[in-house]
């Protein structure tokens, strides 16, 4: 091979090496930088959109707090049951009915797993109350309606409705209801070695 050929070969090698090591590797680094910048820019735009919706979130939070203002979630168990018993008795009297029996079972802790999962740390606790309401048809239905609409968060389910005396013409009904009282349980404080 002559010197001229060696030099020409070297020139070709330099161009190839420049393509491989300078152009290609530089291109990869530049593209990686552009991609990283695009991610940051997207995060920035996302943040700006979030900032723009701040007022709307604040308004909605105020509205929701106002809406939930009347519900007593944080009463302790005894106060909750006491308030429900008082309210239920008043409701029954108001609709011409009588509560002839009431049995409460123990509290069951519930994690926030309703149809809409709650994202906070809310842990609900329920207290089931079985009760019997006696009265006329319209009064019993009105009592059932009103029980869940009171101050205490009470989910009402009807177990049975039957005439008090099936043999007689008396139209008095006895409704067996299962009422679940709900409250937000206090979150237990974790005590560990580093606490």
């Amino acid at each position: 091979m002559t010197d001229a050929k060696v030099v020409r070969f070297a020139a070709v090698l330099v161009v190839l090496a420049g393509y491989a090591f300078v152009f290609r590797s530089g291109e990869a680094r530049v593209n990686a930088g552009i991609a990283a910048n695009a991610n940051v820019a997207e995060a920035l735009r996302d943040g700006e959109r979030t900032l723009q919706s701040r007022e709307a979130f604040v308004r909605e939070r105020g509205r929701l707090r106002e809406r939930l203002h009347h519900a007593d979630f944080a009463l302790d168990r005894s106060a909750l049951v006491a308030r429900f018993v008082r309210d239920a008795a008043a409701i029954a009297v108001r609709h011409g009915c009588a509560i002839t029996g009431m049995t409460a079972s123990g509290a069951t802790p519930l994690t926030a797993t309703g149809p809409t999962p709650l994202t906070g740390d809310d842990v609900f606790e329920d207290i089931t109350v079985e009760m019997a309401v006696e009265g006329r048809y319209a009064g019993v239905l009105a009592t059932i309606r009103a029980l869940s609409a009171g101050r205490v968060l009470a989910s009402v389910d009807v177990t049975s409705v039957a005439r008090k005396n099936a043999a007689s013409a008396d139209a008095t009904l006895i409704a067996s209801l299962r009422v679940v009282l709900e409250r937000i349980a206090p979150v237990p404080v974790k005590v560990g070695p580093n606490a």
Partner: protein
Amino acid sequence: MRRINYVVTWSERHLGTALPPAVPATLRAPLAALLCSVAFVAVVWSVQHARLRATQRDGAVLAVRFAATARDVARVRAIERDVTRLRGLAERVDRIRRSGAQRASDIAVVGDALPSDAWLTALHADHGALALEGRGARLGTVGTAIDELAKLPSYGGARLISAHEDPARQGVTYAIALEQRR
């Protein structure tokens, strides 16, 4: 034919002696090509370096802007989380508050669906299904009642459990099950 170069070279003119050429004529073109290729690579490197610097500069500017808004964004995200929690809570409260009206409405709808000469004496609920007991003026009334109850949109269908003449009084007693809609 041999060509003679009569031009006096730079070395002859200034040094008084003719030095041999540094680069033989045959190597000049390949060497020029080599120098061009080196120059080309240098230009490419410069361009890529400039692009990389520009990208890094843009990245630094974006990072500064991002850092400037990060605290405010975190505050708004906290409000957003609070709103999501409150929405869930409000939905749960609404569902519970509607439960009594919903149950009363279920009972009223069943009562209203019965023909005028049939009436209920008892109703038992079990996981969305209902068992009805009642009385009717005659057996045909029970058939009409089943027809009407089967039309109720909240239930999957009405099934007769029993119907027989009431020995104590005139008419029939019946038991019908309303199945849960699947």
